[in-house]
């Protein structure tokens, strides 16, 4: 019985997904910090999906799942764009402000750092990012 959102490409529409994460997270009794981390990660996944998803709406699902006896808030972001090879994306390394600073390319890195479990599946026409944040545990 989660929340399901179909979002078109309009400015700040990712905030609707952030609000859904917040509402579900609060209902689960998560800490404000964990809720915020999950919201920021979800925002990043939405921005990628909106940027690369072509003209079709993106789909966001926010649910509670139980995996091996542990409860997670799960956010899934799905787009129907060209897709990509997640293994071919270089992790954004230590940032260097001077010289060749990595100014972009932080989305997936942030998602992995802010969430507990992340899975990226992608092929042409279907990219699905599944992110989980444990309920009732600090990081």
């Amino acid at each position: 019985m989660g929340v399901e959102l179909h979002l078109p490409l309009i400015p700040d529409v990712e905030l609707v997904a952030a609000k859904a994460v917040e509402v579900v997270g609060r209902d689960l009794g998560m800490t404000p910090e964990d809720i915020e981390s999950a919201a920021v990660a979800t925002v990043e996944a939405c921005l990628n999906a909106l940027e690369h998803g072509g003209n079709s709406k993106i789909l966001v699902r926010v649910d509670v799942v139980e995996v091996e006896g542990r409860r997670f808030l799960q956010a899934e972001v799905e787009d129907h764009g060209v897709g990509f090879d997640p293994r071919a994306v270089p992790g954004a390394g230590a940032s260097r402000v001077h010289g060749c600073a990595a100014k972009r390319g932080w989305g997936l890195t942030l998602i992995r750092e802010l969430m507990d479990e992340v899975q990226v599946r992608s092929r042409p026409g279907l990219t699905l990012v599944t992110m989980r944040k444990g309920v009732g545990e600090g990081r």
Partner: protein
Amino acid sequence: MEQEQLQVSTEILPDGVGVISASGYINNEGGQAVADAVERLLEEGSTTLLVDLSGTRIINSIGISILLEILEKLLDASGRLAFCNLTPTIAKTFEIMGLAQYAGIYPDRETALGALGSHGGA
């Protein structure tokens, strides 16, 4: 409701430190609004700057990238930049993206101004 629309205000303290208060969503526009405020204060001669993010709960990597750019520009002008009142998640994002390496991160405004002052103000 409209609480996520970015609001930016600036002031220059008597000792010359420029303070930028920003609340709302730091996306590309929000990051640009902060960057513009930094530029304005630089033009007014303030090279020691504090960005107070109380009231900001949500950010994205594009907005933070813009802060990284303006930080670079400020360092080139031999200036200094500090941040205060970050939520734990925003502080963590600043760490990950390397902003925390080049800018001081302080819990609140008093601590930040103390630290900026003691290392030489404007």
